[in-house]
């Protein structure tokens, strides 16, 4: 549980860990049902439609003005997004 939370970058409180562990175990048990079926002969569905080869020509479109790009930035410094150090 904690390992998964770390991968998902969620800092859970002890209370949350306890509560979620119980709920998620129940859910996992329910979804594990899928393994009851023998589907070796069935292809996985990646997409509901049979589309292939959808792409666009290499032609530029206007980018955002810098102020729009930074409009929602929680913290900025000049033209950069600013975050705490890695």
């Amino acid at each position, binding site marked *: *549980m904690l390992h*998964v*939370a770390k*991968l*998902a*970058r*969620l*800092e*859970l*409180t002890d209370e*949350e860990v306890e509560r*979620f562990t119980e*709920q*998620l175990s*129940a*859910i*996992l048990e*329910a*979804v*594990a*049902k*899928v*393994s*009851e*079926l023998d*589907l070796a002969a*069935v*292809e*996985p*569905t*990646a*997409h*509901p*439609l049979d*589309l292939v080869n*959808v*792409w*666009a020509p290499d032609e530029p479109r206007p980018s*955002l003005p810098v102020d*729009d*790009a930074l*409009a*929602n*930035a*929680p*913290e900025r410094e000049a033209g950069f*997004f600013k*975050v*705490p*150090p*890695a």
Partner: protein
Amino acid sequence: MSLDTFRLTAEDAIGLVERGEASAAELHGAYLEAIGERDDELHAYLRTVDEADGTSIPIAFKDLISTRGVETTAGSKILAGYVPIYDATVATRCREAGLTLLGKTNMDEFAMGSSTENSAYGPTRNPWDPDRVPGGSSGGSAAAVAGGLAPWALGSDTGGSVKQPASLCGIVGLRPTYGTVSRYGIVAFASSLDQIGPMTKTVRDCALLYRIVAGRDRCDTTTVELPQPVEIPEREDLKGVRVGVPAELNEVEGIAPGVKAQVDRAIELCRELGAEVGETSLPRSVDYGLACYYLIAPSEASSNLARYDGVRYGLRVTGDDGVRAMYDRTRDAGFGDEPKRRIMLGTYALSSGYYEAYYGQAQRVRTLIAQEHAAAFEDFDVLVSPTSPTVAFELGEKTANPLAMYLSDVLTIPSNMAGLPGLSIPCGLSDGLPVGFQLIGPQFSENLLFHVGHALERAIGFDLVPGRLA
């Protein structure tokens, strides 16, 4: 102006504007007035827009549709204050059709939920009974339309989030064929399942709105052109239509007797209107559909929600230590319980060692579900069932047990997994609360669904106005 916003259909309203009997601004103002009067109780809206910058009638958008310059939160604290710098394609298409944005409606956070109780901004109440839920995740849009606070609205449907609230609020909701409506600008939950759907008072309104938003979008490579133009339904009979009743969808444990009674009546009505009605089977789709959905959707969601990290927009919670701590704290503070649960479930299902057993296997079950539906469609044109096993339940009734909440979607999920369209129309009342009738068709069969839905709607004559407000 005095408008009966409960009964006024979008088609009626468009007529008023076209005949010059009302201006776009007047209509917009009338709905804002209604919202002012009744939305304190219902809380269908998260915010409204005062300016009516259009030439036609107003529309409400679920708050996961990006609207340039208008705050968009997806029902979450992690996007509190986020103002998009671009419009979703569906928003652009509505604007180009002259529609004016009335406001953004409440929803379960990141579309994860079946009651709108997972909204970080408080629940929405069902206009039919304010102690009950409107359904979810598009509960706000459903309540707005049912409560006379919008002529029509857009919602989104992943596991049933348009159909189920439509059912619980007594309105019409369409979940379109996957790929016919653009997802560009729609805050993503599960990419291979999300679709924007019209939520309206009548089936004709539904077709009108679908016609405005549907069609291939160059910004969304998973969209396609409609094979035929959208037809606004006229016919009121069902001659020549083969209606299939899948046993599993209609006999799931948990379907309330009152719901079953109304649905059975609607099926009988199909016969009376000239349809050929027969039994069919979806042997494993219902049994395994929920498990399949609750593996695939959270897996995709766990990845789609990774961008909410406090770097470029939205909530940021910092401490003294570095960026990783910022991620952890921001996401813990910003996400509610349901997104957290689903992110963890999805992360687990995709993690090394578990992928094949969970996500990989679920994608195969998905193929199986598609195959079963295709087989049923060899003998039938449309499949029917209740939309929701129950009528609207009470606020707080299912919040303690996530699994119980998930079961609300057991009837809408299977066809969603196959990318198929589904229309829910109100077919009657049980204990004074609306019952929804689900019509499922093959891919690109919206015109048929509209035809069948319209004919039934005319025959049923469901009164749109919530009993207590009439």
